[in-house]
């Protein structure tokens, strides 16, 4: 009985820890359509495919590009270290928030990296 009680306390503590950490740091993984309908308050994560016409500024440090998700498109700007294999056709995951004039300001930009010898971007190949 003592052990059951102790176990319950441990599980409760752990549960609270995980719950509070989730509440403090989770962000929504939204589609572009969702973002247009309900402009998010905090940071969100969006997945998209890089389209052609990438514009660089700041000596190649900053980029602005269009990401597409099905029929939806989103203008994204990002300043920081370029991930490897960034080019049209690559899928990217961006974290950030919509800024002024509809441009999504990305805090982090990750390309989906090719794993396991499978060709990285057969679509763009």
């Amino acid at each position, binding site marked *: 009985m003592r052990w059951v009680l102790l176990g319950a306390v441990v599980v409760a503590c752990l549960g609270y820890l995980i719950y509070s950490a*989730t509440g*403090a740091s*989770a962000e929504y*993984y939204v589609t572009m359509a969702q973002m247009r309908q309900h402009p998010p308050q905090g940071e969100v994560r969006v997945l998209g495919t890089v389209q052609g016409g990438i514009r660089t500024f700041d000596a*190649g440090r900053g980029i602005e590009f269009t990401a597409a998700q099905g029929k939806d498109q989103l203008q994204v700007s990002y300043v920081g270290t370029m991930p490897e294999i960034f080019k049209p056709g690559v899928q990217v995951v961006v974290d950030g928030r919509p800024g002024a004039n509809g441009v999504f300001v990305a805090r982090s930009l990750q390309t989906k990296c090719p794993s396991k010898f499978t*060709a990285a971007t057969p679509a763009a190949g």
Partner: protein
Amino acid sequence: MLLAQIGAALLLAALALGLMSALVGFSSGYVQDPLLAPVARRAFYAMAALVVAASAVLIWALLSRDFALAYVTEHTDRALSLPLTAAAFYGGQEGSLLYWLLCVCVLGSVSLAAAAHLGVRLGAYATGFLALICVFFLIMLVLVETPFALLSVVPTDGLGLNPVLRDGGMLIHPPFMLAGFSSYAVPFSFAMATLLAGRQDAAWMRHTRRIALIGWGLQGVGLMLGMWWAYHVLGWGGYWGWDPVENVALLPWLATTAYLHSIQVQERRGQLRVWNLFLVILAFLLSIFGTYIVRSGIVASVHSFAVSPLGPWFYGFLAICVVASGVLLAWRGPMLKSAPLRSPISREGAYLAQNVIIVGITAAIFWGTVLPLVTGMFGTPLVVGAPYYDRAGAPLFVLLLLLLAIGPSVPWARAGRTWLRSLRWPLLALVGCLCVLLALGQRGAGPLIALPLLAAALAGSAMEFWRGGRYARRLGGGWPHSALRLARRRRRHYGAHLAHIGFIVAVVGIAGSHFWQSSAQVDLNPGQSVTVSGYHLVYQGLSQARVGDHLVTAAHLSLGDESLQPEQVQYASLGQQTLPRVAIRSTPWADLYLVLDGTSGQRASLTIFVNPLVTWIWVGIPVMVLGLILGNVGSPPPELETEPATLKRARPAVAHS
């Protein structure tokens, strides 16, 4: 052409043998037929032999560049070096399944060959479970994703390999990782067999402990190589990104870490019987879960694996395994009586606490990984990143370090005053480290908590060697000789402490780069300089060179007399895809990590990271594995053979209750 037919036939025959092995295994175990049980085992060996042969055929097809096979065409081309061509064996989806199966077959055969002393029923059931797991993989390889599929038109050359993966890391990281992953099937099968057979003893555990250790070591090396590779090749300044694919690789390893500790409580005290079975089952389920996550593409990851039809199959297999092991545990678990824990302040109490913490960390990482799946069922999915793992993991990790400092010295059964006195050196190290950090101006809670605890743990383990050395001096017969004899006799003890020291060293590296990483992004014209964390870098200029099919742009920087060259490589053949090649200057204190982000004219955009103490990660993990090896090679030391009196006393109580 012919190779494909041979390979496919071998796999089909292996499937038939696997089914037979499973069927005969379970039935001979049920009726306890000592003549039929070896038949099941031999069928397993035969299946294993056919899988080895099929693997050899696939490797031969790759090396002979037989582009009639879709697998060869999709993963290699004529320009690819021979080692990387051979590595394509485990590089692709289908090949990695075959490699996984190969590992289970080899490790399973080895453990079954030595299982004669376990009795007819346990051995036969274990054969049955192992064969069933192999049958699942063989069904995948024969029906769903076969590596021996043929192309209708034979191309003259293959599609080649992505340049990111053309690296030595690719040769060694996946095979270690996958071998470790697959090894968990063996302890799992024996655990399930012991449950099904209704056995009370720990024979299954003693029998599979080595396999669990081997799997744990292989996967530990695999994880480190993955981190090393990410750090040196990908160019984002870090080594762990809390990506789902990384997380699921860590989960079974954590469960096994817990198991390798709690094993000793059962060996020494006859406690935690059900818990140990649970941990072994958990490790296997997590390895299948990981494969499901990775192969199904159900959780968005930065590692984009080709989405394949394997997803639902693995999901089904995982569900069957969860239900089967759950039912067996619920049915047989209550019959397994463990001796009660006498005092929480004891070695067994420390192991239990360590287990709870590690399972807690596992649960937190699991939750972070499946959160988008769970929340996605009710609406917009939620995702978590590094801040979540920091927040949820940090308190648990601090508790773990505290236990690491005091746990290994707590006596079995009940701790007394002598033990408290033995804590004075770790305590002294803790206070000393704290004072040094404060004197150096550290005020952050993280370093002030973690590093003193690490110092205490290091002092505890170092004390153990010092005490051993002092004891050996009294033994006579020449000090180095007697110390070596002592170390050999108490191999597991000293191996474990060496592994702990390795772990501590690796965590120092992780803590250093986590707490004190600094970075700067700069644009420099030739002649301009920048100072980051005391490193004064002068930019000299750019140079370009064409090497083979790619264009290399190098930025030349000097640091005192040394020159550093971060590069950018552009592959014309791959749609002008560019890759950074980082320049890293490592010292024991810190890594200077330079990334060339872009150029315009002679102007270079650079990201500069200073990662303190990172080198110690690459030192610590090998030391950890070395401790594991030294502690367990050769014939089992005497302390394994003879069970202490306490366990023998505990046995009759088990029989009565």
